[in-house]
């Protein structure tokens, strides 16, 4: 008997979930669906997380409703004449001169009133919603993680490889980003200092001369050596350049953005960088009592504005402007009315800032409506669904097929024109002849939808398990010409891989999904 006799034919938990199941080659289908266009492979997206709930009304001002703002938040309101005008109706906090410059150069978009239906004012839950890109409580993957899973199948087992030597995403700091959580692994790699190839999450590992210290040192060394991306990152950072003198070395965000400029210019193929700025939970002393345009929030805004301005300047000097775009986000905005502690409490929708040379528009969406009476606890209503912003970025920036994007999100997507300002660099995509059928959300838990196009014909939909056995006929009926969306309850299914077989006179098509 062999050593591994316990495991013979054992039903083991594989560390990777197989996408290929009994005879159906899902990889072939995936390949065809999810080919990443060459022009999109060079694109870089920067995400800046404003952690704690950013007071959007103290960042982007509806200038046309200053009188109403006075009613709501006179104790913290920046004087009207100090607001930096962007348009007649929209202005920025006085500390955001950098962002104003970018706006005037056509490199900044203000996206107004972004949020989601039925807002949740818990930091933790709301941040999970923003990072998963889903309202479904059971969604465990991040919005970028789902995109990466679709574009780069078999992660993490198949990576890094000859074609993809670099991490797909880098999270600056010690924690990987939930936005990049895929089905089987997190696509982001935590980096505190790209010039130090150490992968250690925390840095204070020293050998104190005891047996313990020796073992810790041994394990640390091994962790370092096996950090497959460490060398790539530090070589890129060393080979890269930074040409702008505008970075403030005392501004941590500026330091990190400078690192990113160095990594990009050094040839690192990483597609997403995530940065984090803490401190936006400004319940009290949001502003300086003696000068309301100063204070905690003003400093945070200045830090972001200055850093992004320096970064954008650097990209311009490095000739990288057309490859990089960035987005700020926060888990929620704050309430319209200020509180008695010179601060603001948890609210709802807030503006996002989208920066880069390729932004399409200056202001996206209209100003929020500020009531002329204080309504306790009122936040700003959402006008733009944040998931639509994510979807639009995937479409404009990473040139993801609209069919694929729909599969990543639970809502019926509305696209916004966000990043089409450099259209000459965007290759024309071949038009899709016959759109593929698609299950979304996928993987799914409770209810999901099957979207496909039909001609005027009789269609049957069968549910098939991974062994190819037909479990049930999920639908049959005469359908008109056009897009169809069928909704199915799948609560009763055990976790695993399944397929829908669409059968009609004109086609026979198989579409896979995972039940969680």
């Amino acid at each position, binding site marked *: 008997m062999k050593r591994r006799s316990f495991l013979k034919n054992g039903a083991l938990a594989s560390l990777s979930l197989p996408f290929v199941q009994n005879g159906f080659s899902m990889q072939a289908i995936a390949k065809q669906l999810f080919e990443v266009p060459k022009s999109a492979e060079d694109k870089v997206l920067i995400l800046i997380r404003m952690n704690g709930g950013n007071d959007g009304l103290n960042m982007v001002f509806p200038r046309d409703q200053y009188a109403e703002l006075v009613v709501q938040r006179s104790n913290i309101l920046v004087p009207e004449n100090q607001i930096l005008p962007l348009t007649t109706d929209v202005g920025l906090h006085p500390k955001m001169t950098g962002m104003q410059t970018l706006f005037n150069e056509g490199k900044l978009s203000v996206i107004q009133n972004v949020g989601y239906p039925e807002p949740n004012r818990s930091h933790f839950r709301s941040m999970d919603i923003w990072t998963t890109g889903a309202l479904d409580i059971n969604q465990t993957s991040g919005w970028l993680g789902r995109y990466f899973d679709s574009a780069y199948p078999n992660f993490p087992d198949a990576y890094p490889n000859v074609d993809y030597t670099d991490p797909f995403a880098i999270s600056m700091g010690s924690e990987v980003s939930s936005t990049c959580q895929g089905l089987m692994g997190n696509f982001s790699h935590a980096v505190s200092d790209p010039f130090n190839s150490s992968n250690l999450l925390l840095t204070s590992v020293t050998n104190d001369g005891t047996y313990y210290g020796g073992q810790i040192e041994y*394990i640390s060394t091994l962790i370092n050596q096996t950090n497959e991306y460490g060398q790539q990152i530090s070589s890129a950072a060393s080979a890269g350049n930074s040409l702008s003198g505008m970075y403030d070395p005392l501004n941590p965000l500026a330091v990190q953005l400078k690192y990113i400029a160095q990594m990009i210019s050094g040839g690192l193929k990483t597609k997403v960088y995530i940065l984090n700025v803490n401190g936006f939970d400004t319940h009290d002393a949001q502003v300086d009592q003696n000068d309301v345009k100063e204070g905690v929030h003003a400093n945070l805004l200045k830090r972001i504005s200055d850093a992004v301005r320096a970064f954008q300047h650097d990209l311009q000097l490095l000739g990288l402007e057309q490859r990089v775009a960035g987005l700020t986000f926060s888990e929620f905005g704050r309430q319209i009315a200020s509180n008695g502690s010179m601060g603001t409490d948890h609210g709802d929708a807030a503006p996002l800032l989208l920066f880069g040379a390729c932004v399409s528009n200056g202001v996206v969406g209209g100003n929020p409506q500020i009531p002329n009476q204080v309504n306790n606890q009122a936040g700003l209503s959402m006008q733009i669904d944040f998931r639509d912003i994510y979807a639009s970025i995937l479409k404009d920036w990473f040139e993801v097929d609209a069919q694929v994007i729909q599969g990543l999100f639970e809502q019926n997507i509305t696209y916004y024109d966000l990043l089409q300002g450099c259209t000459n660099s965007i290759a024309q995509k071949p038009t899709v002849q016959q759109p593929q059928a698609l299950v979304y959300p996928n993987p799914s838990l409770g209810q999901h939808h099957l979207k496909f196009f039909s001609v005027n014909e009789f269609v049957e939909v069968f549910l098939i398990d991974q062994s190819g056995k037909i479990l049930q006929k999920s639908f049959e009926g005469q359908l008109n010409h056009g897009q169809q969306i069928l909704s199915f309850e799948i609560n009763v299914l055990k976790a695993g891989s399944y397929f829908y077989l669409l059968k009609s006179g004109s086609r026979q098509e198989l579409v896979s999904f995972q039940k969680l």
Partner: protein
Amino acid sequence: MTPYTGPWTSAEAAHLLRRCTFGASYLDIQNAVGVGMLGAVNQLFFTGSVDQPLAYDAGEQIVPLGQTWVSAVYPTNTTANQQTEGARMKSLGAWLAKNLNQESLSLTEKMLFFWQNHFGVTTSGDARAMYQYLSLLRQHSLGNIKQMVKDVTIDPCMLLFLNGNTNTVFSPNENYGRELLELYTVGKGAQLAAGDYSTFTEQDVAAAAKIFTGYVVQGVRSDTQAQVTSQFMPVLHDTSSKILSYHFANQTISSAGALEYANYIDVVFNQTDTALYICRKLYRYFVNCDITVWVEQNIIADMAQTFVANNFEIAPVLMELFTSAHFYDISVRGAIIRSPLETLCAMLNTSNTTANFDLQSTYQTYLSMYGLADQMGQGYAAPPSVAGWTAYYQAPAFYRLWINSTYIKKRFDVANLLTSNGFNVNGNNFKIKVLDLLNGLSAPASAPQVVNDLCLVFFPKDIPAADQLAIKNILTGGLPDFEWTLQYNEYLADPTNPVFYNPVELRMQAVLNIMFKMPQFHVC
């Protein structure tokens, strides 16, 4: 041995439990603090019982699913016979993993594992024989070791594993005799001359082989015998007098039939080397791999003396060790690199994460658990050789052999798996119950206290304050501490509402994920 008389705090209690169990919870540690050192050590000698492995796999063709196969015949048909053996081995592997995961607060599993590694048995060809053998080890694991070695010598599984069943007067087989001396009792010392290993010679190997002749095994995968048995066949036994080497004072072992093996083992245990050899192995298993001259003279010698004085009862030796000043010395804390099974169990047992599904799913989950440890380099009852795992004996690296560039990645993969979605077996999800872990801490609503408690549970020594702060920032998501308090209290007020428990669960998973990837987690 100098007894420990220093302070008895959670640091000492956690050290004891980390070394003596496969994973103690925060509550276990606090209880151990409460009952004092002697109380805590005494508790560890409580031996419970385990149920028998049950048939769960469709390959089993004799007993109904849900019943035990340990005393059941095999099918006559060859294919069916093989399928049944496959099913029983899977059941046994899953059962072993289950016992580790569901251990009581006792030394039993840890010592069972020690003996399993000590004898290095991996095979018998009959799952029932393997079960019987493991039951024998369990019975003696905290008991009389001389009796254990005697019983193991004529155990069917061992007879099959080291060819005792074909060792006859007509063709002596030295396999068991050699390993008994080299690996199980006196150990192999420096080579003094050709065939002379300080503690025994080739003459002793040949003599031992003759002494052990005559035992045969019956009933392997039998369709009529419900148990595998060993039997002494006088006609196959070498009745000559066996003369031992000068290391054994040239003693003669006279022919004594079925009892001769036991007489010989008495002689072997009279050798001081046997007690010293076993105590060194225990020391490396429980304390530290580096046996310095000081340790040899002050610790090993004392352990061996106690072992001999108590007629090879192991409990007094362990009791003395676990209450000694040396065991709690700061210099040996955190000196051991956790084995893969210890690593996996530390992730699971500390939160009492167990699989309690229907029979089939439970066994399949535990077989997967067995597989995860195997992928990290340690399949229970499947060491790479009869000498056991190299990490327990191979100088100078010892425990470091558990981790190399491949295995550290596997450890991280397993950490990623168990601190995220886990894995599913027939729709049953298995992942670390982070909320149970959290709720069992001293002050779950206080972010700094949560981190303090987790460090106590998972790390052998305090970590720098900056690292604690970094972990706390992951727990709070970078927010002020009071936001964690609010979130936790909201969850506590409505614990079954995913809107409240999900965010708490995610934060805890992120914290454990990062802690499991810190070097400090991999030592104990």
